[in-house]
């Protein structure tokens, strides 16, 4: 006996969840491929947790259809769905030992006690807690409790494994380690996982795909790379990776790229599929480089290469510099890997743009 995967895909078709008149999730559709880890990302109250709970069956959709493994489960209660969940609070049963906690799902599903215990031990081994079975949850550290919660969800070999902000109660170092462990387990076992978080770094690190939600609807979904490099709207651009947002003008499109004017400067960006006219430029902090302000005739020339800025703040961080700049287009935040020749605060400089890391979105 070993813990295997029965991964299945998840599909939402026009799902809406209303509380009285307020829609927590509004006409949402998406597909999650079997064996992938998809993150629901968004600020508090965006509907991501409600979406997750609808997959679990802890909330019922007001309208629309939910399929798991191609089967309609819209009206199926949580008990009868083959979906397990790791809760933000871990929800370890305080009156049971760790082993009993992990074996719980097996025992209630009618697995023989001995088999359940064996499998629970295996599950604990898998999360690196072999030998902790006889303790009570209160006798474990936060990270250990978290692992128990994961083991408990794993041993049922769910079609879908859900994580509701599983790392939010851990310290930063532990969080990084746990998220890597979760990702590793998921890939090793080929699990379908849905992961809710509001931490975009965490989302980028663990996900095959990310569904960004805002105000009850999907803002954008795609791979981490797509979302980072080609945000479709201001919200996504801002929420993921923290872009500088400044006004520009789309002047032409051809062959998958578009040309955008920023003052006298023109930049090439991936084609956003917008008509010519005013757009918003989302510029990643690492897509800007600083060089000392040119003087004399070079200054005229420079206007077509970059924009003049004043350095308001320069912070040395070892691996890179962080700058706060003031420009005629607004304030900019820059991460520059060049630490050998930093530009001091108060100096004037020229900001240039690398080709990558700039996207145009609608205003």
């Amino acid at each position, binding site marked *: 006996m070993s813990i295997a995967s029965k991964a299945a895909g998840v599909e939402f078709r026009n799902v809406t969840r209303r509380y009285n008149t307020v829609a927590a999730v509004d006409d949402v559709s998406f597909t999650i491929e079997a064996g992938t880890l998809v993150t629901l990302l968004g600020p508090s109250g965006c509907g991501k947790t409600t979406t997750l709970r609808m997959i679990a069956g802890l909330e019922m959709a007001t309208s629309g259809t939910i399929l798991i493994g191609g089967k309609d489960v819209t009206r199926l209660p949580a008990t009868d769905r083959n979906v397990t969940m790791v809760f933000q609070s871990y929800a370890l049963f305080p009156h049971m030992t760790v082993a009993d906690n992990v074996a719980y799902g097996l025992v209630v599903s*009618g697995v023989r006690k001995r088999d359940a215990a064996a499998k629970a031990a295996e599950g604990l081994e898998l999360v690196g807690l072999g030998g902790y079975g006889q303790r009570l949850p209160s006798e474990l550290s936060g990270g250990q409790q978290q692992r128990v919660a994961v083991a408990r969800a794993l041993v049922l070999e769910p079609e879908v494994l859900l994580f509701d902000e599983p790392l939010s109660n851990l310290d930063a170092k532990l969080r990084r380690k746990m998220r890597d462990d979760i990702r590793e387990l998921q890939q090793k076992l080929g699990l379908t996982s849905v992961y809710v978080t509001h931490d975009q770094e965490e989302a980028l690190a663990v996900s095959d795909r990310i569904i960004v939600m805002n105000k009850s609807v999907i803002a954008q979904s795609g791979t981490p790379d797509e979302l980072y490099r080609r945000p479709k709207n201001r919200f996504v651009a801002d929420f993921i990776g923290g872009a500088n947002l400044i006004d520009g003008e789309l002047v032409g499109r051809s062959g998958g790229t578009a040309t955008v004017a920023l003052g006298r400067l023109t930049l090439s960006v991936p084609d956003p599929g917008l008509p010519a006219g005013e757009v918003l430029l989302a510029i990643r902090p690492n897509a800007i480089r600083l060089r000392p302000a040119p003087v004399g005739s070079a200054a005229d020339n420079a206007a077509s290469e970059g924009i003049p800025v004043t350095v308001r703040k320069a912070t040395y961080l070892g691996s890179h510099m962080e700058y706060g700049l003031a420009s005629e287009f607004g304030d900019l935040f820059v991460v520059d890997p060049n630490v050998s020749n930093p530009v001091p605060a108060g100096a004037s400089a020229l900001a240039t743009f690398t080709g990558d890391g700039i996207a145009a979105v609608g205003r």
Partner: protein
Amino acid sequence: MKSTGNWIKSAGLGLGILAAGAVLAATAAPAKAQGTLTVLCGVQEEWCKAIAVAFEKKSGTAVAMSRKSAGEALAQIRAEAANPKTDVWWGGPGDPHLQAAEEGLTLAYESPQFKDLQPWAQSQYKQSQGRSIGIYAGALGFTYNTELLAKRKIQAPKCWADLLRPEFKEEIQIANPNASGTAYTALATLVQILGEDKAFDYLKKLNDNVNQYTKSGSAPAAAVARSETLVGVIFMHDGINQKINGFPVDVAAPCEGTGYEIGSVSIIKGSKNLDAAKAFYEFALSPEGQATGAETKQFQMPSNRKSATPPEAPNLEAIRLIDYNFQKYGTAEERKRLLSRWDAEIKSVAR
């Protein structure tokens, strides 16, 4: 199907609920009334038990006896009117029996022993149109704590007027007539002796000497026995009972005359054991049945002239009984009027 294991257990729970329901339904089948005579009993529990046993021995009919105060019994009979579960109401003051008769809750029945009964017992029969009859009488009187009286060197009360003496200030207990039939009898008695206005003047003065209007008619007897108060106004047999129990009490009948209650028996209309009910009724009127009272230390005056009067019983001949007008003071209307007046003039000034 990971829930297949579950539903078996859940079905087990369902069956559990079902079994509970089944038990409920099975026990819900009312105890078959046939064969067992159900009697509500208005006297002390020993007497209830004694007469039930005696009747069972004599007739072979099983008796289920339940003790209820007069008000409780009437309320129960009234609530059950659509589908009576009770056959006989035995004992307790005559007033509520009359009320039940007035409301048509009880059945008219003529006994061959009618001619053997005391006149007061026959009068209960006439006033109720044959629906109720007297089985014993108890006179209203005083009970007092002899120890306390001796300690304070106070003369025992002999007359209604004595109760107004200043040395009895806050030393008298009497029940609230709104709650107790005993106290209503006292109220009606005073009205009949003194006339209504004078009676209320008397009660207003008495109010200064009353420390408590109890809710139960026999409570003052218990309070006197436990030295909680000096004097109580009660039915005399309640006081005698305390005396027999070894308390330093004695009883007295008021010199101006006093009222009395007629303990009565009625057959419930709609009784499903009518023959047995009639047999019990006859037994309750017979000397044999009435002897069960004295056997259990109950010292009311039996209604059958052939019955032996217990020596401890207050001798009704020696007591000045007034010609108590049950007809007038038993009606709901008069009762309500007097009680409202008592409420307005006495109760509202009580502390």
